[in-house]
């Protein structure tokens, strides 16, 4: 378990995948020699929230109790995740596919993979837009009357998440099976690592929404 006494540098050293998560929590990597508690205090980030998030991403068996997560903090984190994928993960994947096309001139795999990825990204951005316009504002909206169709949108989210995760996992499986011999290994490794990282983040992101955000919102409006 990660605690407030642990140093940022230590937890990042043990699991480099935490780097973007630390960044999204507003904690600077330059604070690496500080404890997480000190870094949170300096950044104005809630320590209990930061620990719940870090432990969830660091350990597959850990997941917070809904009552330990504040909705507004969670939404700020989820929006930060959306911006990260828009600014970093998606352009990185597109760049890797472009390189793959150059490395495999005339081959069908990179061309159809690019088509698949572009369609996936288009749907993902639509999904992000739907969440930010229709779902997240519900948190600050309890005093107003909310049309039942907006609450129905919450259930729609669960289905969308399943598709988002499955399609990414399928792409990775197909690339692993269809990469011909002789293709630059580092490029393929980079692509598969990026896809794996993206998939893991999508799964954890969806878990926060499916297990915490949606049940809490439904409970909020049931009251």
């Amino acid at each position, binding site marked *: 378990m990660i605690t407030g006494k642990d140093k940022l540098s230590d937890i990042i050293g043990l699991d480099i995948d935490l780097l973007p998560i630390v960044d999204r929590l507003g904690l600077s990597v330059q604070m690496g020699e500080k404890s997480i508690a000190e870094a949170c205090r300096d950044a104005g980030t809630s320590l209990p929230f930061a620990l719940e998030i870090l432990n969830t991403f660091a350990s*597959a068996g850990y997941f917070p109790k809904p009552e330990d997560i504040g909705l507004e903090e969670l939404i700020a984190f989820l929006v930060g995740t959306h911006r990260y994928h828009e600014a970093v993960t998606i352009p990185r994947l597109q760049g890797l596919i472009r390189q793959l096309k150059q490395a495999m001139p005339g081959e069908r795999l990179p061309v159809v993979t690019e088509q698949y990825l572009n369609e996936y990204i288009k749907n993902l951005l639509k999904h992000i837009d739907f969440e930010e316009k229709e779902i997240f504002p519900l948190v600050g909206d309890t005093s107003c009357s909310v049309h039942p169709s907006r609450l129905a949108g919450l259930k729609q989210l669960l289905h969308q998440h399943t598709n988002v995760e499955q399609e990414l996992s399928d792409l990775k499986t197909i690339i692993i099976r269809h990469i011909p011999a002789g293709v630059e290994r580092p490029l393929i490794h980079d692509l598969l690592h990026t896809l794996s990282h993206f998939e893991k983040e999508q799964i954890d992101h969806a878990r926060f929404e499916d297990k915490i955000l949606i049940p809490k919102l439904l409970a909020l409006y049931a009251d």
Partner: protein
Amino acid sequence: MTTGDSIVIHASAIIQQGVKSILLAQGFTIRSLLSGLPVEQEIAGWKDTLILTDTRFASDLRPLVRRLIRNGNRLIGIGSVECVEEWGDVFGEIICTEDTPEVLQHKIHAFILPKQGRDAGNGLTQRETAVLSLVALGLSNKQIAAKLFISIHTVITHRKNITAKLGIRSIPGLTLYAVLNDLVEPQP
């Protein structure tokens, strides 16, 4: 089992992370990274999981091996070259800490690959291939049933088998697979 859940058991956090990155690249999800064996009751509950464990736990695992395999689990030992003879009855494969990342990837990949997939084919029957092609063309279960003169229930059974054999679940994923295997023409 093609890909799915995996559990890594090793006292070294560095080895845990190394094995984790290889498994992620192969399409596995990491259910747990453990530094030691959990209690027997917990182990007995593991199903359809790739378990990679330090060979030092082999003697403790030996009494549980049959039950683990019956539950669809596969076991890979993490040890040294000398372990291969000693613990070959416990583990289906042993990866050595001396192996290069490429060798490790190859060993795990070859181990998880279904036997039928080791041949040129993908293990699909002719009927399943026909259903897959129609799924890739965007037909609904009802349309596929009408086209192939079979019931919707049979179409669903074929689709479940296709997913199990290919490890691909989404319609876009199945379509991509069908295009790459010349079952359908790519969309412009």
